């Protein structure tokens, strides 16, 4: 280890910072061939001390940062079951799911037809209507009710496409929840859900 070139290269302190008497003691103690103390050993101590301090600092800072992430009870999100018989054709209900609104819309045949017809239209975030509902359940459209722009709750039936209209910045969605106009970048999000029976749905 004496005179290891790697450590020598990074030596910051010259021998000038030591008194003459100290140098002699250091020389005899570590049998160094150069004038002064053993720089490689000193650098090792510096690097080791800095590394230990950095590691200790990181382990202290991380809990301070991570405490802001969702707590265990927030992460342990319950799923929601909903009885669809309560929703008449053409109606929408809004329920609270994971602190956000969830739209469950019972679409009329005309609304479904309009959505399917627009599969061929120029879409910002192209997706066929058939991929946005469960097979054979075209009337049931289940969406997270947060505008993909900045998270406002769009109003049902608003806008020129008869889907949703966001009052905050004017994003307009069609009857499939696809973005058609305005600043929102993507379609309204379809959450994970499953039909437990013909009239019961489980979201999450």
């Amino acid at each position: 280890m004496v005179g290891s070139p790697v450590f020598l290269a990074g030596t910051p302190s010259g021998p000038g910072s030591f008194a003459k008497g100290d140098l002699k003691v250091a020389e005899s103690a570590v049998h160094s061939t150069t004038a002064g103390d053993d720089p490689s050993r000193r650098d090792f101590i510096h690097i080791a001390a800095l590394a230990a301090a950095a590691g200790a600092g990181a382990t202290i800072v991380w809990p301070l940062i991570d405490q802001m992430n969702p707590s265990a009870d927030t992460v342990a999100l319950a799923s929601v079951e909903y009885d669809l018989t309560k929703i008449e054709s053409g109606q929408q209900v809004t329920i609270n799911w994971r602190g956000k609104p969830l739209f469950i819309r019972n679409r009329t045949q005309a609304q479904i037809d309009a959505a399917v017809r627009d599969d061929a239209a120029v879409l910002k975030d192209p997706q066929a209507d058939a991929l946005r509902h469960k097979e054979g359940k075209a009337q049931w459209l289940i969406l997270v009710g947060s505008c993909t722009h900045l998270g406002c709750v769009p109003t049902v039936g608003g806008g020129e496409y008869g889907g949703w209209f966001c009052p905050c910045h004017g994003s307009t969605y069609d009857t499939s929840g696809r973005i058609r106009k305005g600043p929102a970048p993507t379609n309204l999000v379809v959450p994970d859900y499953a039909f437990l029976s013909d009239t019961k749905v489980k979201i999450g």
Partner: protein
Amino acid sequence: MSGHSTYEPKPGFSRWLDQRLPITRLVWDSFVDYPTPRNLNYWYTFGGILSLCLGIQIVSGIVLSMHYTASAGEAFASVEHIMRDVNYGWLLRYTHANGASMFFIAVYLHMFRGLYYGSYKPPREVLWILGCVIYLLMMATAFMGYVLPWGQMSFHGAVVITNIIGAIPVVGGPILTWLQGGFAVDNATLNRFFSLHYLLPFMIAGVVVLHVWALHVVGQNNPTGIDPKSKADTLPFTPYATVKDGFAMSVFLILFAVFVFYMPNALGHADNYIEANPLVTPAHIVPEWYFLPFYAILRAVPDKVMGVVAMFGAIGVLFALPWLDTSKVRSMRYRPMAKLYFVILVVACIILGFCGAKLPDDQVIPGLETFKILESDLNSFVWLSRLATLYYFAYFLVVMPLLGLLETPLETPETIASPALSHPAAMPAGAMAAPEKKG
């Protein structure tokens, strides 16, 4: 802080303290004997007014927090409790809520003053940047404070503003969740906002100390923009600046009192007296008036990420301004063309504020249909805000760099004192140039 100290402590305690902690000397040198340019006008009183505002907000805020409950279930009711049950609670809350608005009125006038007189130009770059940092901290503090009453505007304002973070590609989502402490704005968000709302004013106070320090190192700018050259150009801070600042503060406090006592809700939004409901967004969501220009810029850009970039860029250009302005002349008093562009900038900012309060697709002039091109109606607030946004950025990125090279400035006076002392209005017959020096 230029020159040596003239403080002479009295024998006894003053001298004893001065040798151990020269704090009285610091105050004397900074706020009594400190030389100020003799031609400072009332636009230069807003620094003192802003210190007063910060003091009012901190004092009223500390007492309000003794009665407020930071909990999604109880926050709204606790604010009503302050309004109805706490002794003088209505006064404290109205002072604090309107105090934020008064703070921003003062800071905007302070900033436009700096823009007009070239107070950002060398050697005041660091002073200016520290001011921009204070402004950013003020915006963060005001935003989080507005969330605390947990009304409809509080809640959905918080949703919109925190979701701005989500616009950052790739890492935006996890950062948003981290910031909100959940998957939506909720109790965790409210609690951390309360904590930070309490913390940030003290950080502002810290940066204000740096701001004043930097000011006292480089010295105050003045309406002529030229540096003081001799003692004839300056007056001692006390009594000249203290009295002038004190008078301006009194006038400012009258305006403040008019709001607090006669129209305490004029600057707020009625929807914030409805408790937060995550399932329904108010039909017309607007931020507080002092954020409206930035809100208009955000909405002017059709793309989500670029809208956010433009909004932050609007503040970012302020930081770069000392290096964007190429003019050798500091004050626009001697820059006729710059003066014109400056006035247009002020108008553009007011237009942006106006647009921010309107629905984007509404018509500026109702009924006018001639400006429809393809699918867009140029007679709409979104297009008006696009125009104003364009000018805002052009002022900083095009006009400021080019104008310094193109315009011919007027001749600047030799010293501050020469025009001030020769002006007939300023010098009636028999008046003394420096009355404090006589008798």
